[in-house]
């Protein structure tokens, strides 16, 4: 089964489509002040590039070519370098995304625990493939690398926000139904076994636990 070679995101030398005009591409005085503060934190402006890209994504919802250029020019960095950073992280959206972005992890642990099953289940449910957005602009699916929650694989992240752990098809259905109604899943605490008692099952102080993940007894696991 040979597939044809994919196209690059932007063809070198070809003028990319523009989505924001020069009037949009300005920082407010407040934003500029924040950026200056970040730049001052590091020996060179390179250090601030991720924070500024994040700020830009919050402002413009995604990062088309002109926004990446805008960030590069703000920090006086080579455009190719900022483009390289922006494309490295799946959390920076290089395409216009739906309201809810489902970042399904298919890295090693999730893959072994059925990450691809979850990915394909969601694709079937929403009628789109990974990297696509539903017609109604509600959902996008991305296949992402490890999000650091291997203990509760398979998992996904909703729009760079809450994690949904220990996924099953039933859990996916609930998630999609809730998201359609605009309800984000709450914070699910997954503490390390040794921390459960100490932190009272919650490793965050800024969020309320909706469900507590309990480590199965060791002997039961072994059996």
């Amino acid at each position, binding site marked *: *089964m040979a*597939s*044809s*070679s*994919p*196209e*690059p*995101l*932007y*063809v*070198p*030398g*070809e*003028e*990319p489509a523009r989505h924001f005009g020069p009037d949009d591409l300005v920082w407010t005085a407040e934003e500029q002040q924040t950026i200056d503060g970040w730049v001052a934190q590091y020996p060179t402006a390179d250090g601030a590039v991720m924070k500024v890209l994040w700020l830009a994504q919050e402002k413009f919802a995604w990062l088309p*070519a002109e926004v*990446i*250029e805008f960030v*590069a020019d703000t920090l006086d960095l*080579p*455009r*190719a*370098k*900022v*483009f*390289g950073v922006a*494309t*490295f*992280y799946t959390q920076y959206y290089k395409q216009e995304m739906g309201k809810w972005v489902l970042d399904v992890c298919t890295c090693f642990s999730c893959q072994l625990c059925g990450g691809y099953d979850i990915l394909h289940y969601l694709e079937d449910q929403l009628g789109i493939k990974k990297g696509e957005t539903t017609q109604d602009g509600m959902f996008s699916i991305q296949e992402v*690398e490890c999000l650091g929650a291997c203990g509760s694989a398979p998992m996904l992240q909703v729009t760079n926000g809450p994690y949904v752990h220990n996924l099953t098809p039933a859990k996916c259905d609930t998630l999609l139904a809730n998201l359609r109604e605009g309800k984000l899943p709450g914070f699910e605490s997954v503490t390390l076994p040794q921390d459960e008692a100490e932190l009272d099952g919650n490793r965050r102080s800024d969020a309320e636990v909706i469900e507590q993940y309990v480590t199965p007894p060791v002997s039961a696991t072994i059996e």
Partner: protein
Amino acid sequence: MPTVTIDNQVYEFENGDVLLQFCSDIGIEVPHFCYHPAMSAPANCRQCLVKIGTPARNRATGEPEMNEDGTPVINFMPKLQPSCAIAITDGMVVHTQRSDDIVEEGQVDNLELLLINHPLDCPICDQAGQCPLQNQAYKFGPEGSRFEFQKVHKPKRIQLGPHVVLDAERCINCTRCTRFTSEITETHQLSIHNRGDKNYPITAPGVEFDDPYSMNVCDLCPVGALTEDYFRFRARVWEMSKTPGISTYGSKGINVDYWVKDNEVLRITPRQNLDVNEYWMPDAARLIYTTFNEDRPAGPEMLFRDGGRGPADWRQAYDAAAFLLKGVEGSETFLLGSALATVEDNYLLMQLAEHLGAPAPQYLSHVEPGSGDDWLITDDRAPNAQGCERLGMQELDADLLKSRLASGELKVLYILQDDPVGMGVLSEADLDGVQVILHHTHTTNETLPFANVALPIAMAVETIGTYVNADGRAQRLRPAKATRHMHRPQMMEMGLSRLDRQGTPFDRWHDESNKIDCQPGWAAIPEIAERLGRKMRWDGPASIMDELAQTDAFAGATHKAMGFTGVPLEDVGEAV
């Protein structure tokens, strides 16, 4: 001096030496892809892994710890280390793949990893035959592939810029190309895009890779991911001969290799010379390869007595040139030297002028102010102006020449390898009534229509000779492609292809096509001089330089001494 033990042998090193470079310098081959001596070492290909240990010291006393037999205790690092990023320290013990099975296994495994998503398209890849990945996979790699799955597909045939094409699937992400644009040319045009198994180098959105030195990334690329657009699918590297030479582009004297197949120059690549161009050359200096193949003359031409103009044979043409020179006084002739011709040819021209009693030859300057970049592209478009200066030739005084031509004072103009009409120095009216003898390299030479005798001269890729670059470095030209008439010195120094060396009489690789009917200046000028009663005593360009090397201006610059990297000449006035 501090010492390091590599594979049970002790070597002395200087502080600051990098282990991988040190191994290369002493002749130990450690496989590597991302390391390049001119750039930073990110250690991201992981191929140069070696085992490294340092002498143990007692924590309390700081004294070296000793084994019972008196040898120092060596603490080996728990994991293999990339030798490109390790500065050698005193007493360090290194095990390379030559002496340690773990290192050998580590390198094999790493190569297997690099090859997992690498397409097996060597048979159609331009890099095959000169590919570090291919070579090192043979030498240090696994026997076969265990990967039975669909390989990752990435974009192919991306035109990164006017001269460079990217095949992202072949890329192993060594980042040599991105480091070249950020550290050497500082245009920052390339960056690694995307992550994991999907990453490859590309420009920012909408940006073309139009760096004037862009094609150096094709030389740097250790796989076939970045290739020169002009050379794609033109020839396999083993079918070509590769001859070291000097670029005719500008007066920097860039050291190059000329790649020739079927008597045509197909490719020019930079040759390492740390005193001149290091490892680099500008794109424009590569793209002049066509000038060696196209619009070349088909033998001598002359104006016959009946007024007709047509091809002549060499003897006729020499006779005619000698006849023209013999018929006038020495003061009525003017000989124009050339910054495009070699030192040897210009020297012979000066000898001829002396014999004729003509005024000292001058050369035509090709300087275009402001066209250089203070690096490898120079304002001077000609390669050998400095050589002419050192011979005592002066830059042409065009106004004086024009007035002497206008007054009818000059009857014969002898032009060595240049084009005064095309350069706009002389016009058709100036040459009215003047007999012109021209050594030309191209049929597009605009002085050619006015020549009474035209003798095609061999170009820098066909002759033997010396160029002196703007910094006063004498460097040698070697014949890279055959001409119709091969003299023995040329035959001796011709670059050979693999087939030339290994082919049998049954292989049909010889090609007589594309041979230019031209003569090197050091063969043509003595022929004319001999007909004028001056027997030139040199038996080839090497003996001319042997003589010139005795003078201050060219002290020590014999062909032998120049070798492959040239001889820096003393800074003297303009005199022989």
